[in-house]
């Protein structure tokens, strides 16, 4: 690890002013410190944002909910009102890593965490994502990699919260030097779809300050499959939200995690559900549509049947009152 200086920002303005290619913002540090220690990234300066006042609250306003950037994953998992409004989000938070990690990692850090591709994380491998010229995973070990991508890098998005928030039509509030912008979850990850060099749309000089979730009469659910019961990443995760009227679907959202550099959606699958009643058959048909464009590689094709099962489970769970 290269030496760097450390500063604690007490306002968003300071953090934004400091943030640059060589100055990284630090939240819980689970992701960033790992990158620094392994020498994957270098920084001259690290600015902690977790003491900035006002960013650690969860509030319900008339238009919707606002979750401050510094709210921890554990807080989201334990927030009873939030869980009632968005059971899928609470479930996603509860499944993240382990209690220790949930207690320090923040929602912003979780959304903006970088690739967990084993090659990307390896100190002695320089793949495309780190400026090299090959993707080792494609020809090598890609058991945990993406089924859908618009580019060559197959490192999937691993943030469970991103997947859960996507189906809630959430957006993120981002402060830059020139002012504030709002991005939908799709916009937040869009650049990673085909640009192997990036992880998301936030650039140096910007800071994510909050997540906004609109109020809507939606039911939501989140399920994930892993290899271990705890302290493990999702092989595949799936979040859904449904607007139902008399048992008939009026609007549906389905997003998959860990199978694409973005939260993976396909409008065709969502539209196919509109006007139907959810049961095994309609859920499976939607699942098949959502997975139609999957491009499995030799070691990750097993994610297709897992995704299919999870989509069905999530849809049926969201459709079942409870």
């Amino acid at each position, binding site marked *: 690890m290269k030496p760097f200086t450390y500063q604690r920002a007490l306002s968003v303005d300071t953090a934004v002013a400091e943030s640059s290619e060589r100055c990284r913002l630090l939240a819980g540090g689970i992701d960033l410190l790992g990158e620094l220690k392994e020498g994957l990234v270098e920084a001259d300066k690290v600015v902690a944002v977790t003491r900035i006042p006002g960013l650690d609250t969860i509030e319900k306003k008339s238009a919707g909910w606002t979750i401050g950037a510094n709210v921890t994953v554990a807080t989201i998992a334990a927030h009873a009102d939030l869980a009632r409004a968005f059971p899928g989000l609470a479930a996603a938070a509860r499944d993240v890593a382990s209690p220790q990690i949930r207690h320090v990692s923040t929602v912003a850090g979780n959304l903006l965490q970088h690739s967990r591709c084993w090659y990307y994380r390896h100190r*002695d491998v320089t793949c495309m994502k780190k400026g090299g010229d090959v993707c080792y995973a494609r020809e090598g070990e890609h058991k945990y990699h993406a089924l859908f991508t618009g580019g060559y890098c197959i490192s999937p998005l691993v943030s469970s919260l991103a997947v859960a928030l996507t189906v809630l039509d959430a957006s993120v509030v981002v402060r830059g030097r020139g002012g504030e912008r709002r991005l939908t979850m799709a916009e937040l990850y869009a650049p990673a779809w085909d640009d192997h060099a990036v992880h998301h749309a936030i650039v140096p000089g910007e800071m994510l300050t909050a997540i906004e979730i609109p109020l809507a009469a939606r039911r939501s659910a989140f399920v994930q499959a892993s290899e271990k019961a705890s302290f493990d990443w999702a092989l595949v995760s799936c979040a859904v939200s449904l607007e139902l009227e008399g048992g008939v679907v009026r609007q549906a959202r389905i997003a998959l995690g860990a199978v694409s550099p973005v939260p993976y959606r396909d409008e065709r699958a969502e539209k196919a559900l509109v006007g139907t009643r959810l049961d095994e058959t309609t859920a499976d048909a939607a699942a098949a549509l959502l997975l139609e464009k999957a491009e499995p590689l030799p070691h990750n*094709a097993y994610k297709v049947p897992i995704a299919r099962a*999870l989509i069905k489970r999530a849809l049926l769970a969201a459709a079942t009152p409870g």
Partner: protein
Amino acid sequence: MPEWPKDPKYIGKSTPRVDGAKKVSGAAKYAHDVQPEGCLYGVVLRSRWAAAKITSIDLAPALKVRGVKAAILVREGSRQVRYYGDELAAVAATSKRAALDALRAIKVVAEPQPHVVKEHLAARPDAPRVFAETPNTGAGRERKQGDPDKGFAEADVVVEGLYATQVEIHQPMETHGGVASFKDGELTAWHSTQGISGVRDGLSGALELPQNKVRVLGEFMGGGFGSKFSAGVEGLLAARLSQAAGAPVRLMLTRFDESLAVGNRPSTFQKIRVGARADGTLTAFSMESYGCAGYAAGGPSAGGSTNSGFPAPYIYRVPNFRTRHTEVSIHAGPAAAFRAPGCPPASFGIESILDELAVKLGIDPVELRIKNDPMELRQRQYRMAAERFGWAAKYRKPGSSSGPVKTGVGCAGSAWRVPGGGTQAEIEVSPDGSVEIRCGTQDLGTGTHTVIAVVAAELLGLTPADIQVRIADSRFPPSGASGGSMTVTSVTPAVFDVCTKAIEELMRTSGLADVRGPQWRAACRKLGVSPLVLQGRWIDGLSAAGTGGVQMAEVEVDTETGFVRVKRVTCVQDAGLLVNELTARSQANGGIMMGIGYALYENRVMDSTSGVMLNPNFETYKLPGIADVPEIDVAFMDLLERRVMGIGEPVTIPTASAIANAVANAIGARVTSLPITPDKVLAALGKVPGAARDNPHDAWMSLFATQPA
């Protein structure tokens, strides 16, 4: 013949660890915690190449870094590197930061060479060679008994299968290494080791110091599982750095280092055929197998438990068999003895195919084993275990439970046969009645301190808390290394001997008819001013070898996600005469958890293109966590007449096999390689589109195709 007391007060009962409070409060000092005055921080520079010729290493820039006190080469001159992580140089500095800066400053000139890190590729005739002068595979070793062809001809059914086990890494909680302090021509080393005396001899030999000028200490250590018998490259580097710097040096490996270079359990590939009569009696067994112990197998260090050989047909009685085992070398870290070397892989192959046979013959797997297991004790254990576990009610036709989440059960057996011996011990009884027992053994976390206290308390009529146990100092009377599940069988007879001698001597000096228990203090007062110090040694007749065990597992498999959950493991273990039930139970629990990791999660993943190990940390090298641990039911057969036996290793042998059989029973299809991960479960169920393309068997089959059978 000496005999253990018939109606014991402590032996066979449950005494909490005598050092438990020290451990939970942090007062226990592990090698990792030792911080002598002025201690420097040591680090190792490792090869970034899987194969390379190192032409020069320039340490000068490292020596210029502020705070650096010493920088040394592992070996002088140009040299060959045979795996990613091989040690090249080491640095000692006043801070971690300076040491790491110095590592980065070292200039290594290397000529990278082609490497091969996958077994099936290494076996090809045109593969890059690990050792230029020899091919990566040899001709193999053959073993034969009876007439296999006749045996197969006599069989009513023959089953065949191909089974594979992964490379497993020891991953003790405390990494390898220690603190070395070289002063006035004498070396003191606090080392995390399973063998105090071996480390002393190793250091004295390598540094050309008289053995009486080297002292090795290691009162507490955090696990070794077979990988910590010697000083290791890191131990020697710490000593050399201390010598060069003139200050103590602490060199403990990082988890990254630990994953690469200090041992592992070799992988195996087993093509097995078994023939049996319609009643289940085995008539013939044949096996062609490959195994990989990393780079070392092809080199001069091959042999002993660092090769990939394993017993076959393991514990079963088969009149006719033929086996051939071939070593394959790859550019990867070397193997080391690992808890019951050879046995878990051996068990996985034979127990898997026995279940296939049972299904084919329509015989209950437990009955099939009882029929072919020559050990009467284990036959009884199967019946006991079946009773505790509820086997009869739980065992159903494979894949027959309803719903997407299916349950299944499996069983497997184990054997262990390593006798103890070769230990000396010393007792010091003070006139105030206090007792100290000294022995140059060590406590890997298994409870040696407690076991010694229990035995001494029992014999002297005192309580375990009255006994001061001092171990893990090479100045104490020597004992062997703690391996082969031999610590308890080696140490307790020596403790028995010193205690018996102390009693006799006290009886003589005090003139009392019985000096134990209530009389103890009175007798000791008669010693006058000097304590009584006596030596003793291991004596025959108190310990034995040849234990057996049986385990049964129940699992739940989600056939849509491939997720496997172990619900319950029942273990019936012959422990001979149990010395302390609580610590023995810990061993069984730990062995079973380790077996769960072997069955479901652990795997060293090598990358072909770069030659690196891809998962050198606990996030990606997956170990079972507490959430993955099922209900564990352990029953010991406490058999006084069988004398003291070691159980640390046998308890881990059958777990993975029992789990694998349970998974096959649950889903009606077999995952034939470890670890049993969701991708393989789904592929076995035929649910993965295009999985044929990725059938790992295709890759392994090429191993068997490279050489004529």
